[in-house]
């Protein structure tokens, strides 16, 4: 009889779990509001009138792709609603060089209190010598303001970005945008591919093809099936399917082909070649 009741109980639990699960599924899509609530402050940058809160999901900025969020406030912390805002992330180096990095223009979100952009930081801050500075221009109540301040960009524990010279003699930057939270299964992979001219003029590279071959070097360099080539999408990034069969450290080997199908960078993985010279890393 005891067994019978435990059986009944497990059925009841199972049914309840099902309901709970159904209930959860409905709420799964986080609303915009939720997204902003989850953001963590990286730091404030101030001028004599206002301050800008720089936010990210992790509360830090790291080498590679970063979604960055901003909010303009007065000195008392009241949220302000500027009519427009633009920015430029700049790296100043002790050698006297300076350069920017691939980034998006600031988009004004619905409520216009939050501003959003991305930046692909190509290197980490290094003390006071090599530093990143965010330079903002905004219009508030018809008046234009400038605001700038240093931010710290941390090195990434894994390779999320690679700068390289292509076979065509041009300089490229490739950076991993997604998956930011990889799952075991098929992930949508998204990378940004940019060309830089003398480190200043940075532009998207369109309509190349990126072949991917994810491998686990610690587990006999085995791969995974059903990955697809990454192709250019109108949002400015390359998208494709990335299969990850287990958690752990994955090296995503890549071969970059231009519009003519010529190899710009990278080699296929073979018995003798464990790794491509073009790769990004994931660990989860």
């Amino acid at each position: 009889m005891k067994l019978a009741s435990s059986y009944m109980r497990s059925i009841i639990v199972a049914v309840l779990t099902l309901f709970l699960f159904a209930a959860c599924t409905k709420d799964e899509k986080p609303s915009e509001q939720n997204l902003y609530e989850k953001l963590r402050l990286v730091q404030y940058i101030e001028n004599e009138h206002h301050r800008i809160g720089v936010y990210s999901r992790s509360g830090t900025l790291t080498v590679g792709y970063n979604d960055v969020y901003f909010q303009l406030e007065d000195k008392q912390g009241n949220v302000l609603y500027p009519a427009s805002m633009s920015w430029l992330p700049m790296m100043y180096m002790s050698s006297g060089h300076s350069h920017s990095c691939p980034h998006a223009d600031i988009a004004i979100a619905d409520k216009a209190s939050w501003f959003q952009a991305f930046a692909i930081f190509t290197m980490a801050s290094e003390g006071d010598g090599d530093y990143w500075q965010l330079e903002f221009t905004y219009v508030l109540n018809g008046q234009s303001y400038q605001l700038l301040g240093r931010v710290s960009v941390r090195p990434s524990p894994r390779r999320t970005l690679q700068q390289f010279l292509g076979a065509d003699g041009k300089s490229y930057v490739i950076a991993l945008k997604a998956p930011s939270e990889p799952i075991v299964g098929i992930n949508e992979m998204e990378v940004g591919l940019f060309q830089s001219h003398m480190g200043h003029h940075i532009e998207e590279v369109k309509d190349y093809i990126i072949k991917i071959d994810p491998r686990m070097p610690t587990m006999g360099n085995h791969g995974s099936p059903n990955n697809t080539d990454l192709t250019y999408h109108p949002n400015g990034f390359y998208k494709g399917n990335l299969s990850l069969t287990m958690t752990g450290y994955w090296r995503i080997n890549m071969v970059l082909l231009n519009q003519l199908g010529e190899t710009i960078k990278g080699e296929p993985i073979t018995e003798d070649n464990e790794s491509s010279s073009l790769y990004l890393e994931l660990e989860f």
Partner: protein
Amino acid sequence: MFNKYIGAAVFMLLCLHAIGQESLSDTLTPVSLDEVIVIAPRQTPAQKVKPYGSVDDYLESSGVLNMLRRGPYAAEPLINGMSSERSIITIDGMRIYAACTDKMDPVTSYVEITNLSAAHIQSGAMGSSGASIAGSIDLQRRKSHFGSTKNNFGLFSGYESNNQLKLLGASGTFRRKTYYADFDLSMRDAENYRIGGGAKQAFSQYSKYNMGATLGWRTSSRSEIVFSSIYDRAVDVGYPALPMDVRLAEAMIASVQYRRKPLKENLAEWTTKLYGNHVRHIMDDSQRPNVPIRMDMPGRSTTLGGFSQLKGQKNGQHKWRLDLNGHFNRSYAEMTMYANHPGEKDMFMLTWPDVHTYYVDASIDDTWRLASGMHARVSLGLAAQRNQVANEMGLQSLRIFYPEMRPAINRLLKRGGLTVHWHQKIWNAELGLSCAERAPSVSEAYGFYLFNSYDGYDYLGNPNLAKESAVAMQAAWKLQLSRLSAGLQLNQHWLHNYIVGMPQAHYNAMTIGAAGVKQYEQLTAAQIFNAVLQLSYRPHRLLLWDAQWTYRYGDGRNFGPLPMIQPLSYRSWWHGTFRQWGLAFGLEGAASQRRVSIISGESGLPAYVLLHANAYYRWQGSWGKFLIKGGVDNLSDRYYTTFADWNRLPRPGRNIYLHLNWEW
């Protein structure tokens, strides 16, 4: 009741002995040539080679079964030359699902001889336990019965020299008019064994503890309730043929059964049972010195179920049985690999993605008398089965390979059979035809990179597999003369949609060093033929010779020989008994095997012959009954391996053993 078991000592060679010839000719008794292996450590047949051997040793004596060994412990029973997915093993009708993805824990490994009274082996699809292709084994619990006050106790012990196996068991029975209680306890502990020639086989140690209890309560003159439970725990079990060992294999098995008999004039018996069991299995490789990567592979399986069975008869012409049974199982197994580079995250995957199985089954079985000395048995069954992948991560993992895969699959499994039985004064024959369908096993449908160390491939489950089906034809004939008895059993299985792993060149192996990936696919046709011949001759009152020959043949269309198929094998014993003494010599061997499944990693095998000998002495005194039995296995210390040894693992060499039993 126990007398019956003593009388059944010869069961080892001939199953028909227990069937009384007289009772057959006139009344309707459901006779079948299905095999019953009596396992009765108390009141044991002294002629049994090793009365206190393992359950595996007992099962191996059947001509229908082969015990596939990955080590000295927990052999996988193959019925009629088919792997364990194709059969069902139950304990008193209770379903248990093993918890190991690598078949290191068949259901038979979670019981001990002290728990059991018999193993009922049924070939083909005529069983009531569910949808199976090859057959079924029902392990019957040892139970006493109600009666006048009596308490019995037993104690046995043994030692085997080859692997320093120490075994110890105790049992107690308390019988009263309105209740009974049975308790048993046993343990086995073995070191590494020595192969023929004397070398030690590393990683072949094991320890096993087992406890069982049964409580019977007579609720009225016609009804009873029986509670039964088993706790089994094996630790530090080596599997020398595999790259990993087992730290823990543990099962908790419990049931409560209500039985009422007779209900009415034509309703003989009604039995209803509820049961539950939980199995935990933890593989580990921490004892292995050289592994490319350390890993843990724990698995667990929980089953809840019940059945209700009604038996009745009509006019002495029909004897029928109605069965309704159902169960729910969840099987979960995972694998964590620890990277050799410090600071790197562990690699984790689900090898069984928390598969939920819901199963309901109804079957009817009727034996009716056609004429004097002839009756027929018809059996029909229908089951509904649902498999569901309950773990989201597991589902996403499988969807890498099967993007369209749905989390749940429903199947309807049909089975049926007809047997005609003739019984005359000195002979007995049976001719049967049955067909059945089965659903793919958890590993076959949902296994994720399960490494098979025999062929060196990682195996991928395939949720799109269709049902496997089989038509089986069975013929058996038995002859019983005063000095001579003979038995011949033939069966042929034609399988459709035979499930087997096939290499997939386009996938990368996950396991370091693996040859590639195999995915479960289906052969349109496969066939398996089995033949068992048994002879027994008594030239003198004190002398008995018995022998058994077994041969199997398996072939798959566009595949070739099926794996794990027994070549011609034989076993022959001379038994001499004089008063309280007994002496026996045995010969056991197999012909060479050239017909092997190369795709499954098999290679040819040479022939071998082994010699065995044993002797016993038993006496009865005021202190109770005693048995002392000693013997030698593999007398010539021959190095050998068989078709049923994983990776051609060598078997033990010479082994001297001594078993003692005391009952009071």
